[in-house]
């Protein structure tokens, strides 16, 4: 047992350090060489680059990676499927559909909040309500019901997006494509503040229920016979995971792969206990996207590549290498 506490403490310290270092790299690295002393003393343009571009973008990258990765871990436990992702319930497809509708109808920004982001939030929420109500049967919700409803609604949203993309004109079609590729644009600080106010309690709630997710990850009946109210926990988890996914997707567009590989990699390292798996996924997911975004900004500078492309191109081979080099056993 002491051994386990030591391992967990090491994993946490490592993950926190990795997140802080990645955040610093994301702020410091870029196509423009940033002079930190000048920037901190308010000298132009370093000051503006730091405060208006790099810092908000790095913070958004950290939130995005953390939220998607935590949501991935959560959905994998709830749906009892290591291949589940933040998008398995269709939440980010819903967000995308909302965003595409906003682009289609030309809903502009109002009061500093982008119409596309608002529509994406609404789309995500609508999909969540739809999935839960379709999959509930006489007041009970099951994992398999959620999975089937999610996959179906995912397909419907995907088809609707393609349908709309074919209706819009050439210019809007570019906006749609750009949105669907996902990317991190420097947000306003007020947006970041809202994101933090919304996501902090959700993250804490998910981390607090680590022991419950463990039991639920084995089975519905297993959890029920161990005194858990499975329907309440499934709903709580779905809502929390959907808020995490929906909120960041509304700002960045869909960014794939993070919610899949970070939890997988950590399970190989730390095992399946969500009390350590969830916090480390959040921290290292944040670090991963922050680093990917540095690559997205720099490798073809001044051209920027969508960060989702980097998460896949960088994460994919890394993940395969990890699967190949794992030690004996069939840890997923």
């Amino acid at each position, binding site marked *: 047992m002491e051994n386990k506490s030591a391992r967990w403490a090491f994993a946490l310290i490592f993950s926190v350090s990795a997140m802080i270092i990645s955040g610093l790299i994301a702020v410091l690295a870029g196509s423009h060489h940033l002079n930190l002393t000048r920037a901190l003393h308010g000298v132009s343009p370093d000051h503006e680059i730091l405060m208006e571009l790099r810092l908000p973008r790095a913070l958004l990258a950290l939130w995005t990676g953390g939220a998607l990765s935590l949501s991935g871990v959560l959905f994998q436990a709830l749906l009892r499927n290591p291949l589940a992702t933040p998008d398995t319930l269709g939440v980010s497809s819903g967000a995308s559909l909302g965003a595409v509708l906003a682009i289609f109808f030309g809903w502009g920004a109002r009061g500093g909040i982008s119409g596309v982001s608002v529509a994406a939030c609404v789309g995500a929420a609508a999909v969540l309500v739809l999935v839960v109500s379709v999959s509930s049967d006489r007041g009970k919700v099951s994992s398999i019901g959620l999975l089937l409803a999610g996959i179906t609604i995912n397909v419907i949203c995907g088809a609707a997006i393609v349908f709309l993309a074919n209706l819009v004109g050439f210019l809007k079609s570019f906006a749609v494509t750009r949105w669907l590729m996902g990317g991190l644009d420097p947000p306003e600080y007020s947006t970041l503040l809202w994101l933090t106010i919304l996501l902090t309690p959700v993250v804490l709630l998910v981390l607090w229920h680590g022991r419950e997710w463990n039991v639920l*990850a084995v089975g519905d*009946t*297993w959890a029920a016979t161990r*005194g*858990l*109210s499975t329907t309440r926990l499934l709903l709580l988890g779905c809502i929390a995971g959907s808020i995490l996914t929906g909120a960041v997707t509304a700002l960045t567009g869909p960014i794939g792969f993070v919610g899949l590989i970070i939890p997988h990699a950590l399970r190989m390292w730390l095992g399946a206990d969500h*009390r350590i798996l969830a916090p480390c996924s959040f921290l290292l997911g944040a670090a991963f996207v922050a680093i990917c975004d540095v690559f997205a900004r720099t490798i073809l500078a001044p051209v920027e590549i969508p960060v989702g492309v980097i998460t896949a191109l960088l994460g994919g081979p890394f993940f395969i290498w990890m699967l190949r080099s794992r030690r004996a*056993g069939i840890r997923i």
Partner: protein
Amino acid sequence: MSSLFQLENASVKYGEAEVLKPVSLTVHAGEFIAIAGPNGAGKSTLLSLLAGLNAPSSGTCRFVNTPAHKWPRRDFARRVAVVQQSEPSVFPFTAEEVVCMGRMPHRKGMYESEEDHVAVAKALDTTGMTAFAQREFRTLSGGEKQRILLASALAQSPEVLLLDEPAAHLDLQHQVQLHQLLRDLSRKGLLIVAVTHDLNLAAAYATRLLLMHEGRIRADGMPASVLNSDLLQEVFHVHIELHRRASGQPWLLYGE
């Protein structure tokens, strides 16, 4: 003896099919009840009714005066533990972590208490699985998994243990050990209800045998009185020879 479960004309329907016909039954602490019968006789359905996982379609199934399915889940789980047939897990939990999940209804916070660690260690010891504690549950053999699931239920420190074919996957030695353990637990005052296909082991260890057939309890009593060849042939459709051991326990041979 206080009665723990009381069923009055409890039945269960899945859609149109009445898989459990109205059953009345009273069950006391300290009993070791074996439920036997052919496939589809309603054994597992009766067990899940006792476990409060299903509500009866008609009639009632009470646990200590309150319908089993209406108990607050956590309070119920502190008193009643269930061993299902092997739970598949897609995640790399260790055997010890699986046993530890039995402490869920007793949780006081996010981390295990000292009491939890003691209960888990004792459950692993009782089932002879201490050496396997750090093994990944998925890599265990069928019988080892079964014993870990039993350990998880024991860690729950229940008054009632409901088991669905607990001897499945076990080798002969462990089948006998399991039944000895269940008998010892029942003598300490636990109520044991186990679905089984092994009539000989049931006859040797259980204090009461329910023989089920086509959704009904066909016979209910001491194993020695329930097991008679005419009844068994009618229920199981195989030729059965009934012998007696020196101790007087029935001993069955069956074949064509």
